[in-house]
């Protein structure tokens, strides 16, 4: 009796349980992967700003607003006064612009939802990458076609190293200009 019950436990119950757990784990792992890596994350923003309109249709250079991108670590989110450079004149009557103008008049900052975020212990520098000629789109996707910005690439160490180690395959247009990026720990972690 005892023996057969033990047999049953070991031969049937255990493998089934193990199988179910493993399948559940792998299914969850792959299904929830984009969420975990935030791919497809497109939160509501305080102002319905369209990159498609500004960057795509009107061809405004990214650097007009993201002024830090060639100079420092952060590309920087434009301060409200940059928006107002144009919008004191352009499209003053639109509801979203009215909202913007109100923020500006109240001297309140716009609190944008953060979309791209690296882990705290990784130190990324925009200037180094952009000054080498790497296009924003390589990491941020086709921003000029997005009405609402969403994350396209995974921002994991694997994704960084993929490019750093295979620069010529990933960035064929810059074949003559760049080498592989550094892949030692201290390049990003300190």
């Amino acid at each position: 009796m005892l023996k057969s019950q033990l047999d049953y436990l070991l031969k049937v119950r255990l493998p089934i349980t193990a199988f179910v757990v493993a399948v559940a784990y792998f299914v969850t792992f792959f299904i929830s992967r984009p969420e975990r890596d935030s791919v497809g994350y497109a939160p509501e923003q305080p102002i319905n700003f369209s990159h498609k309109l500004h960057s795509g249709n009107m061809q405004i250079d990214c650097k007009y607003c993201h002024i830090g991108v060639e100079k420092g670590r952060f590309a920087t989110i434009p301060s409200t006064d940059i928006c107002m450079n144009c919008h004191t004149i352009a499209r003053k009557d639109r509801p979203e612009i009215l909202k913007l103008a109100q923020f500006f008049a109240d001297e309140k900052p716009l609190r944008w939802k953060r979309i791209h975020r690296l882990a705290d212990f990784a130190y990324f520098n925009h200037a180094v990458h952009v000054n080498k000629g790497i296009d924003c789109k390589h990491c941020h996707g086709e921003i000029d076609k997005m009405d609402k910005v969403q994350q396209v690439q995974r921002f994991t160490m694997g994704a960084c190293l993929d490019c750093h180690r295979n620069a010529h395959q990933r960035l064929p247009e810059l074949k003559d200009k760049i080498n592989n990026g550094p892949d030692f720990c201290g390049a990003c972690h300190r």
Partner: protein
Amino acid sequence: MDKKIWKSLDELKFPVKSQINKQIEFQDSVKEEFDPNQLTGISRRKFLAISAASFALTTVACTNYRDKGEIVPYNQKPENVLPGKSNFYASTCTGCSNHCGILIKTREGRPIKVDGNPDHPVNKGKICATAQASILNLFNPERYKKPLKNNNGKWEEIEFLAAFSSLLGAINKAATEGKEIAIISKPIFSPSFAKILNDFKTKFPNTKIYTYDFLEPYPKQRAWMDFYPNQNPKDLDFSKAKIIVSLESNFLANEGNFVRNISDFVKNRDVNSPQNFSRFYSFESDLTLTGANADYRIPLHPSQYTYLLGTLINEIINSNKLLVNNFPLEQLRSKFSIFKLNEFVKENNIELKLIKRLVDDLLANQGSSIIIAGDSLNYEAHLLTYLLNEILGNSANYRPKALPVLSKSSLEEFSILSNSIQNGTVGLIINLDCNPIYHLPKDLGFQNNFKKVSDVFSFLESENETAHYSTTIIPISHNFESWGDYYDGIAVYSLAQPVIEPLYGTYQKESIILALVEGKMRNDNYHKYLKEFWEKEIFSKANTGVTFEQFWFSVLHNGVFVSSTTKTEKLVPDFSKVQNINISKGQKSWTMVLKKPYFLADGRFINNPWLLEIPHPITKVTWDNYLAISEKDANALKLISGDLVEIVYNGKKFEVPIFIVPGIAEKTLTIEAGFGQNNVGTIGSNVGFNPLVLFTKKELETGYVLSNISINKLDRKYKLASTVEHHSLNDTFVKDLHKSRHIIQEGTLESYKNGKFQVHRIKEKMSIIPEIKYTGIKWAMVIDLNKCVGCGACITACNVENNVPVVGKDQVIRGREMQWIRIDTYFSGSPENPEISLQPMLCQHCDDAPCENVCPVVATNHSPDGLNQMVYNRCVGTRYCSNNCPYKVRRFNFFDFRNHFANGFFYQDSLKLLNNPEVTVRSRGVMEKCTFCIQRITDARHTALAEGRELKGSEVKTACQEACPANAIIFGDMNDKNSEVSYWRNHQLGYFVLEELNIKPNVTYIAKLRNKLQEDKA
């Protein structure tokens, strides 16, 4: 080189025990007090339930995107501020009366680091450990935020304007009643503030201003004024000296403008020009950092300095070799004839030939020697020192000393103030950011007197003892939130500018006094006043063609304006005072000497945990002061380190632990001031012991020495946290051979000059590890032990730059201090008068690093530019690396120390702003160590990349290198043949510590040369 080297007296006396201590992984005290019953009593079921619940939550959390917070850009971006880029602002430090120029590094509008301003003539780009750490005082969460009113012993928060009008009311009341308004302040160096105070005096003629500076003793100043009547006191220029004789002075650590003194002193310690080496004799009763750097150090009882000076003067004036003869030779001869050299050396047990050599050296270097007397000495000793310098023609070696615009009051004036309070003629006391209750002599009775005055207004940044004797406390802004100007009395005008909005909406003290003069508070009033003042008073001295606006912003940018009107006056001595004084030979009774603290200034930095945790430069005691005593005397009194004793002097009693220190003079006890304050915040309250309780006006006026004290042993112990034997390099494998391990290598200047001195290097080495070629930049450091004086500025600079946590006294006792760079002290010779060797020790970034091989998760490994990297997020905390590190430089986060220390002191909101955003804040269970400031290397590399050029090694300066007042640390690319680093790495005096392990360290030490005769070498 075959001399016994020891790190502490314990190691010398009990070598076996000490060996065992070095082998064990943990300090003894770590093993105590683990009690399973104290663990949380969570049951197995509960644990499983919590696990299940958290697992379920995790699953739910995985199903949606995580919120990543917000990015909040500026509404209107200020000019020149770019997130991620540092801005530097020139300002002036107000920690002590030196007023060094500083550069404040700010990120996104918050100050994160302070360094010296290279354009400033006072300190030439370097600052002390205290100034480095002063940034913590700005973010101190315990700063006063609102004015507080004392309502029968209870503090009530009031609005600033209410406090202001009650102050104005109190002033008017005192004025109408004809009572005195007493303002107590530090000496005032600000010309504009002095003018405001004068205006205040004009408006309220009953005002009297009292200033004191605890760090500037009275006898020294009085002796100068008597010897050079009507001439301004001066400092000494050590760069001009071939022979330096220090009498009880600690000029390399805390006396005078010590940052400048260090850089001047080491100018004559350059092994590239051995002919310019100075020779330094130090007589001292304590073992100070200055004495540790001396070529000849002679312990001498505090009462013997006039005797010594008399003897030296007698020998010198009778030598017939003097070049100067403007003094009454015959009179002096008869005056000093009682001081016989033979008797002096016999009574003090000093070698006769040593003093003879000193006299010969002084005579051979007339005009290029310096005799300096320490601040604790009495009037007579200072007077004789000035006389000796004058006889030797050294008066050209003085350099200008900063003088306050409103000069210091005498203690007599404070005594008069005390009397007027008792007579009821004082209506109001305004305390401008001082601590008179703590500092002023107890016999003046200010503790009781303050209670007799109806209104006491204290302008304070944070709590101190005087606050508790005030009726109203008005919070004031920190220096980094304030405007200011400082004049050294000769030529240098410095500006201080705010680098951050006042965190708590406070006003600076100048602004409030100005408002009192004007009758109402206006925003930004002092800034406007300052600018107008400069336009009227100082702009004319510049004589430039530019407009005032241009002049103002250029001075603001540079931090300093030096007017060209430097008058060189010749000092005219008055010898008559020397004739009149009564000089005795001194009685060697039991004596206690009060010393200045190394890092706490006058005690105002007691609530700064960074400064309390820097080990004392000699004894490595942290978080306390103690009574230092020689081993011989301790044995005679049957005392051991940590015993509590009671000092009795004139009926007053003082309880303090003792600590046995080698090299202390006989019958001498020394203690540092600044400690033992009550009510100064959670960190500093009751840290250490306050020796000032023994001092009365009489003693403070005549030098910081108490003679004829008695010592009673108490049957109690006190635990002192000394790190002296922590992280010792293990020497068991080689037993007695540690002499030949050549950790410390020293020679004499003489043997170096004639080519006899060679450092021990190992030529033939074999390695089982294949050699790795470094083709690009390879980082390396050189530490010149001839220049390092051990001041500790590097330790604090590293703490601030790298977010190194403070652990607290209990953890220091367990050997868990986290500082990435430490300064090892090695003694050699006899415990009565040892030779001291100091050696900064940090990660050596070995090419074949033993730590790397043993890490099971490859969290520490090597970069292609030769750095031993430490990846925190990969580290699982096995601590194998620390165990395998021969230099013992790895530090483990046994706790989340920010949380663990003082109930999460560092987790308070304001202190989060203190962290350097370029460096990860490490948490519990992670190993850390020196990174060669990899954030600075990366930053320089990124700048070079952005500008499309190659990085040069000389572009990177590590935090310790930047801070080092002696420029003893050199950092750069050793593969660049023209770099300074590769020059020193191949220098004949360069050596590696523990080179025989063949792990190829990348920190080269330059062997110290002592300017001793070979025969004197211990």
